[in-house]
């Protein structure tokens, strides 16, 4: 649905003289268009003109393709309704009477309300929860209530365009939220187009699909939130370039960065729910869904889900893992460059599928105790506090739904993993991970309890008891996980569980010692941990490339790889890697604006080992210069290695066989190790001072603990990996077990097979197939 309802051509508005000119805008159904701009910039005048309340000075306004001048007042009234700023003071009118005036364009000569009109009015009143005040005199209610009544009136008019002039000004937070939530619902449920003006920029950022900034007598900027809410632009729009901001708290804009284009698409996908979902009934019917929920965190959901993925895959089914929302720092980057939770990536491997962001459409990466970076469909959309996210979560339902539907199209069965406990009763509103998701995708649920931590009966039966009746019926079976010792001893326990819960126990799974990345958020507290895991930070460049370079580290259970894109996440890594980039100069600029540039430099003074691979290597140098069509584009690098890079058009692509020609700093003992890899780059890097050659063939240099190389796959050779990690771990006083490093694929397959075997032995697979609605081969 992309039909424009309202459209202007060369519109000029104003009273005695022109206020704003050259307005060409399009208003689309199901979208919120926001006008921002300083006082007097013409927002209200534009709204009034669009609503046909004020005559345009020039140009044409089209309503559904017809010029608005050619339409009768009542015809316009059936399409456009308004909520304006002026206070209305209707004498002796009840709220209901005020709301009823919205039916004006539909009633007959004497304005008598028909039954139909009355039912629409009653419905609106009850939708907005205003039954209690509907008979009160309008003049006796609070301003917030009045605004709600005026909104209800506008809704009763059943418009296709709703125009609101500063709908939240003067309202307290409760009514603000109420009005904004209502607007979002209207847009989603009735596919109404909303145009509003607003002074609260923070609200505008969250509610808008499209933003128009008015100033200096014209549209200064138009676009998505990301495009318009740039610090420098907003500051100049409101003339606060040099003003102090100490009194307004967090600033309502994005910092001026370059990575807008891909984020915009996300934002669009993110806020515009598609109402015309293609045959979801069919998708649902053709693809059975098994959902694994746990009685608590770490009950072993991920592992059970991974094992089931492997079993179904080996039985010849196309199976896909899915988890709506993951909270983890340990993320995985897909081939397409999207970021997702590692647990689902592992499950995908178990399912013999390529990991895809659809398997984990929402990833929350905690920055600190208060905020998380929110990643939707693999792309970061911004930082939010927990409270903000809870408010936001509801809008993500379509995103989750779409991701799920994409998977369902290519799968015979989907194994869905829940998160935490499904009965966190205070958090269950708008749930999209546990039962809320189960209802959305009509999943059969298997509940997993952790006997190792004790209280298995309370865990399983208690959880069932706390579920809503409808949800409880979804639970088709129970699994007792992490059992140690003789399984026979628990036979009676199984009996009791089945009797008390009236659910089938699908199996008792023994405690498995496996080395699989099954945990989501093992490193939540990494910032504050002095000791503990060995952690590697990879700078998440906006145009990151060849991220598979770092997959090898996953063989080491104690090693965490974090993808970092802000200084606060960086903390104190044991090794920092600047990866390759598809656009080195732009990413280097981004390093500077994001504040990472300074943090990286200060880490280098502290002696942290810093690796630059390919584009990252170029950034370590003094200067990167690009000659494009005669124009020279140069950027100063991190100045950590005395090298200069000139980027030219010829792309170097070649296999590499060589060795470590020399090494400095902590890693000086790795000299001589043979390495294999490949080079893909478009630049030539040369030293301007004597420097230790790192990788042979002048493909890399090093000085102290700074190492730069063009060789991708540098860490892939087992020896390099083990030596480097050991050396660094020793230096940091951490213990890392490198015994597991073998041929990575073989090792992983072993682990997956152990898991599969264990589950096949302990679970009643026949029953699980029955629950899933598939036939066991």
């Amino acid at each position, binding site marked *: 649905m992309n039909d424009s309802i309202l459209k202007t051509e060369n519109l000029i508005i104003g009273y005695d003289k022109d206020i704003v000119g050259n307005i060409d805008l399009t208003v689309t159904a199901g979208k919120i268009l926001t006008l921002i701009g300083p006082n007097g910039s013409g927002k209200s005048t534009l709204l009034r003109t669009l609503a046909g309340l004020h005559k345009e000075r020039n140009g044409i306004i089209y309503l559904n393709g017809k010029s608005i001048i050619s339409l009768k007042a009542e015809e316009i009234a059936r399409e456009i309704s308004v909520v304006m700023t002026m206070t209305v003071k209707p004498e002796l009118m009840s709220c209901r009477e005020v709301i009823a005036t919205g039916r*004006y364009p539909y009633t007959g000569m004497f304005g008598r309300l028909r039954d139909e009109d009355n039912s629409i009015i009653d419905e609106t009143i009850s939708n907005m929860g205003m039954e209690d005040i509907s008979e009160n005199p309008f003049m006796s209610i609070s301003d917030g209530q009045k605004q709600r009544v005026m909104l209800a009136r506008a809704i009763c008019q059943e418009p296709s365009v709703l125009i609101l002039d500063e709908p939240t000004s003067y309202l307290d937070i409760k009514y603000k939220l109420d009005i904004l939530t209502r607007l979002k619902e209207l847009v989603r449920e009735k596919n109404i187009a909303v145009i509003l003006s607003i002074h609260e920029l923070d609200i505008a950022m969250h509610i808008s699909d499209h933003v128009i900034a008015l100033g200096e007598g014209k549209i200064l900027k138009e676009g998505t939130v990301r495009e318009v809410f740039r610090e420098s632009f907003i500051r100049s729009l409101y003339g606060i370039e040099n003003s102090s901001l100490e009194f307004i708290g967090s600033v309502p804009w994005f910092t001026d960065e370059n990575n807008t284009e891909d984020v915009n698409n996300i934002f669009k996908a993110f806020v515009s729910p598609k109402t015309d979902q293609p045959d979801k009934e069919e998708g649902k019917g053709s693809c059975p869904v098994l959902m694994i929920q746990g009685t608590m965190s770490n009950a072993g959901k991920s592992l059970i889900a991974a094992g089931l993925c492997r079993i179904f895959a080996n039985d010849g089914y196309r199976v896909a893992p899915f988890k709506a929302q993951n909270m983890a720092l340990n993320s995985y980057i897909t081939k397409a460059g999207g970021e997702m939770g590692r647990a689902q990536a592992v499950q995908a491997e178990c399912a013999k599928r390529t990991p895809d962001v659809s398997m984990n459409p929402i990833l929350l990466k905690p920055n600190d105790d208060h905020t998380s970076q929110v990643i939707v469909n693999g792309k970061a959309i911004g930082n939010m506090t927990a409270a903000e996210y809870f408010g936001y979560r509801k809008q993500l339902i379509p995103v989750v739904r779409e991701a799920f539907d994409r998977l369902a199209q290519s799968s015979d069965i989907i194994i869905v993993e829940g998160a935490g406990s499904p009965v966190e009763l205070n958090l269950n509103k708008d749930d999209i991970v546990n039962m809320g998701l189960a209802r959305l995708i009509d999943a059969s649920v298997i509940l997993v309890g952790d006997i190792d931590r004790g209280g298995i009966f309370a865990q399983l039966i208690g959880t069932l008891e706390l579920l809503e009746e409808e949800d409880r019926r979804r639970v088709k079976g129970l699994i007792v996980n992490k059992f140690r010792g003789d399984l026979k001893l628990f036979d009676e326990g199984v009996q009791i569980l089945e009797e008390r819960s009236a659910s089938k126990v699908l199996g008792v799974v023994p405690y498995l010692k496996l080395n699989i990345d099954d945990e989501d958020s093992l490193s939540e507290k990494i910032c504050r941990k002095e000791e503990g895991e060995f952690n590697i930070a990879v700078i998440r460049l906006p145009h990151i490339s060849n991220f598979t370079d770092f997959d090898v580290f996953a063989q080491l259970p104690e090693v965490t790889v974090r993808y970092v894109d802000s200084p606060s996440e960086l903390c104190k890594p044991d090794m920092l890697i600047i990866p390759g980039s598809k656009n080195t100069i732009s990413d280097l600029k981004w390093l500077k604006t994001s504040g990472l540039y300074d943090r990286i430099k200060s880490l280098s003074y502290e002696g942290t080992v810093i690796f630059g691979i390919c584009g990252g290597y170029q950034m370590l140098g003094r200067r990167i210069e690009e000659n494009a069509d005669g124009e020279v584009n140069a950027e100063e690098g991190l100045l950590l290695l005395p090298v200069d890079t000139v980027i030219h058009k010829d792309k170097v692509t070649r296999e590499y066989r060589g060795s470590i020609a020399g090494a400095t700093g902590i890693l000086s003992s790795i000299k001589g190790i043979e390495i294999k890899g490949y080079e893909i780059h478009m630049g030539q890097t040369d030293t301007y001072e004597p420097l230790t050659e790192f990788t042979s063939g002048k493909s890399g240099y090093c000085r102290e603990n700074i190492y730069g190389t063009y060789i991708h796959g540098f860490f892939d050779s087992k020896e390099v990996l083990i030596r480097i990690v050991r050396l660094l771990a020793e230096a940091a006083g951490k213990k890392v077990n490198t015994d597991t490093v073998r041929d990575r694929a073989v090792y992983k397959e072993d682990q997956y097979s152990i898991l599969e075997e264990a589950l096949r032995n302990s679970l009643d697979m026949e029953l699980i197939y029955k629950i899933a609605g598939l036939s066991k081969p």
Partner: protein
Amino acid sequence: MQNKRSKLTFIFLIFLLIVMLLVSIMSGSVRIGAWEVIHMISGKKDDLMNYNIIYNIRLPRTIAAFFLGGALALSGYLLQTFFNNPIAGPFVLGISSGAKLTVALTMIFLLERGKTINSAGMILSAFAGAMAAMGFVLIVSFYVRNMSILIVCGIMTGYICSAVTDLVVTFADDSNIINLHNWSLGSFSGIDIKDVKEIVIITVIGLIMVLMLVKPIGAYRLGETYAKNMGVNIKLLRAALIVLSSILAATVTAYAGPISFVGIAVPHILKSMTGTSSPGVMIPGCFMTGALITLFCDCIARTVFAPTEVSISSVTAVLLVPVVISMLVKRHMAQS
């Protein structure tokens, strides 16, 4: 009919109106009993003198008071709607006085040439005066949004018009001057059955036209912007309000001279009785209440100091000014 309270109010009004119509016909220098009145109206000519009194004097006067009172109240209601202000009325805005002035000027101009004015001429000249005064008020209101200033201007206009009227009346030299003088103070005396026919036709047409505005007036209560958004043709509505209120006020002035405060007070009295501002209730209600109050005031005007007749404006002022003031005080208290 919006609610139960409105219905009860209407039943009450109809009952009072019937009583008042009877009382109005009964009272006067010759007392005629209620039964006799009912008897006479149903067509019996038992007592020729009483029959003549009723049919030639009291019945025309009563009917005129009924319709003109209703028209006056309706005019006030329309003006209050137009200005969205409770103290607007044909008298305070100087519209009645404007009509009075032009009628007086026309009369004297014609009398000096030995001609008498017919009722059509009276109404036309009154309408012209009403529109002129209204035009002045509108021009002021275009520049000044403040209602108090507007009212002051209206009252000043009224004074000027009255002063000029007094002046021309003083210097006119004709025996009809007494009539003119009485008329200029406001009175229902001397209205004959022919006048009554014209009055009924004009006011009934006016009432019907106002009833056609029920829907847009209802929407206009939320102010111009919202009304426009609901599809009301604001320009047409405003023009209709002005023209209709002027015609109604001019008609009253042409036949009975300026009558004060009925236009302002009646809408308020009705609102406090019915508890609603719905035009479906207000329009017929104002007409009936205006008729009732005017009948009542006319009765007092001609009976209290009989045989001397007091001008009706004196009675309406004494009775209705307290209503207006108490309403103003109440509103002010409610606002602050």
